[in-house]
């Protein structure tokens, strides 16, 4: 499923320039070492942990996009870094659990 389609279905707010990609899976974690070891290329990362080391890790393992939950927002530096790496970041006020159920309902299995 395309990132743009998911973003619309879940009413996710883009906080970086959009760069549409195909999402092939989802990984949910706030531990950076867990993300880099276990997330798969093409995954959508759902997290509350958003800083430059997370973007670096996401880029190293080819994560397609990031959803930041609980209304958290990345800093300007982090946004720029994500744009350079072409990893779109979306923000939502929802919790990780709410996002997870909505992703499932939207057809990401």
């Amino acid at each position, binding site marked *: 499923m395309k990132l743009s389609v998911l973003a619309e279905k879940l009413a996710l707010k883009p906080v970086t320039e959009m760069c549409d990609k195909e999402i092939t899976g989802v990984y949910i974690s*706030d*531990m*950076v*070492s*867990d*993300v*880099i*070891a276990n997330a798969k*290329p093409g995954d959508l990362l759902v997290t509350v*942990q958003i*800083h*430059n*080391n*997370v*973007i*670096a*890790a996401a*880029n*190293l*393992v*080819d994560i397609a996009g990031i959803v930041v939950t609980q209304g958290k927002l990345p800093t300007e*530096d982090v946004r720029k870094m994500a744009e350079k790496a072409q990893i779109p970041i979306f923000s939502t006020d929802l919790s990780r659990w709410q996002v997870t159920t909505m992703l499932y309902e939207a057809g990401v299995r």
Partner: protein
Amino acid sequence: MNESRWSTGEPRVPWEGAEILYGESIRIVGDDFEHGGEAAAKIKAILKQFGLDPAVIRRLSIANFEAEMNVIMYAQEAEMQLQVLPDAVRVILSDRGQGIPDIGQALQEGYSTATPRMRQRGFGAGLGLPNIRRNTDEFEIISTPGVGTTLRYTIHLQG
């Protein structure tokens, strides 16, 4: 000063005198969280140019990221040296830092000495060295408390 050593994997290529097709050295500065992950990213870009198997690039990138963040969190500075060999890629990372008093303990999954500040950033899962071990074919740690640590790890390109 007691140097301790630990290693796993069968060494296929000697550390000295191997044919190096390409070498690169990248400096990492302690406490520089802002640039954490950039050395690993540079190496990934280099390996992509070499057209290496994406699975090898992924494994080395995971190891490099963990090794780089360890320097940022626990050492003053280090040089991350990449060596592309005919049948392997390897990294030698020598830091000046606090060293590892008990390597066996540090290798245990879940064991961490991360500070609250590191944990707040999502580190401290106790997966750093285990992630390096899991993603490499040869891995050696040489550490002297109060002096520093050298990590050497290799991924074989065939077989």
